[in-house]
């Protein structure tokens, strides 16, 4: 395999080789350097909505006192880049972001905990009335699009903006939006073989052996169509599928 081109960057004083095309956030995470994030998900294109992942950068050809705050989830690595993930400016900026988010979603445990880590226990802004837990990061919409269902989207704009399901028919009940939501703002109910999300109720196929919910028929049909795999590939849990494979090997070996 051909060598991928790498660049050398410095994060918090550590020298790191990062492949070209990686973002600062990805490079940092790969080397266990923690940068908080909310709207980033490795499975979909970064969006830079939550502004929590800000870091400070300097470039080797800049004058020494020149620096810039950027969102690390969007900023690509480049040769000689110097990154600070916890400088006073960065911390100050994150505090403001969390303070604002706390005003938007005052009831969210995730945001409250994050804010507390930055020493913010109550927002200094006016709290949103009747607040849900949505921080408008748009991750759910990106995930829904990536899956290919295209059921949900943001509607309206400004303070009125919200996420909803304008294309309810297209929802396959896969729960991807709810499970990736950083603040668990999307509600769903799963009871026995019934699942309800976005006010739409689905029947869920249960694993033939352990009776755990697997997927909705709509979801199975969608994944099967996308992957070209037969539908019954998706009707069992991994554990059951492994057991079946083991059993068939056992038959081959011992019969």
């Amino acid at each position, binding site marked *: 395999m051909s060598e991928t081109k790498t660049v050398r960057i410095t994060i918090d004083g550590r020298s790191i080789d990062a492949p070209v095309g990686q973002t600062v956030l990805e490079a940092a995470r790969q080397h266990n350097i923690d940068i908080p994030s909310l709207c980033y998900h490795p499975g979909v294109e970064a969006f830079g909505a939550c502004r929590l992942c800000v870091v400070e950068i300097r470039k080797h050809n800049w004058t020494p006192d020149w620096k810039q705050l950027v969102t690390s989830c969007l900023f690509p690595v480049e040769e000689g880049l110097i990154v600070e993930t916890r400088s006073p400016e960065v911390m100050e900026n994150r505090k403001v972001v969390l303070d604002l988010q706390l005003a938007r979603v005052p009831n969210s445990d995730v945001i409250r905990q994050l804010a507390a880590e930055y020493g913010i226990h109550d927002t200094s802004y006016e709290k949103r009335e009747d607040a849900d837990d949505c921080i408008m990061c748009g991750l759910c919409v990106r995930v829904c699009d990536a899956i290919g269902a*295209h*059921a949900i*989207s943001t509607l*309206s704009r400004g303070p*009125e903006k*919200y996420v909803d399901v*304008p*294309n*309810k028919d297209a929802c396959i009940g896969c729960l991807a939006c709810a499970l990736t939501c950083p603040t668990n703002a999307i509600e769903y109910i799963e009871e026995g073989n019934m699942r309800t999300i976005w006010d739409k109720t689905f029947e869920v196929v249960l694993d033939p052996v352990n009776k755990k919910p697997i997927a909705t028929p709509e979801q199975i049909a969608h994944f099967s169509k996308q992957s070209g795999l037969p539908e019954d590939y998706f009707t069992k849990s991994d554990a059951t599928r492994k057991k079946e494979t083991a059993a068939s090997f056992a038959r081959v070996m011992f019969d």
Partner: protein
Amino acid sequence: MSPKSKTGKRRDPGDVAALEPTAGDTGAKVPASPSKATGDSCDPMDPVCICDTMDEIFTHYPREEASLIMILQELQDRFNWLPDAALERIAEELDIPKSRILAVSTFYKSFSLDPRGRKVIKVCTGTACHVRGAGMLLEEFERVLDIPVGEGMTDDGTFSLESVNCVGACAMAPAVLVNDRYYAKVGPGNLGKLLTKERES
């Protein structure tokens, strides 16, 4: 949407699906005879089929995602709102998910997903008009027309009511815009005259 009317906020845009423009109420060129069916959803006996209009609109723009807003604008111009059937058709022709089209059409205030009257009355509530009583004027319009601002239309399908922030005619405050026509210094005294004139034209 004006901060006054909160009701429309969580409206499911899918709900308007059944509504179609009716021949009398819209500026659309509605074919007199049943049109050739082009979309799957087209009922050839439907007197208000929009297929022909849509076919024509599509000839004006390249079929690509970048044409979306221009097509929506032309639709809005012709019908005064965006009928759901038309959005379905755009989704199909441009191969854009309908959810994305709705995200765009709810983003811009100039698009409406609800049927609107033949004439849209825009009462300016910008600073200059505000200090000259635009708030009261708006309430008076709501009372006389018996419709809330930002929603629905009068029973005869003639008027819809909206508020806007400064139409650039502050010297004429309070200013009112009916479709493209400006009215200066509108007040409870001459509001009746304005409506009669507009109803007749």
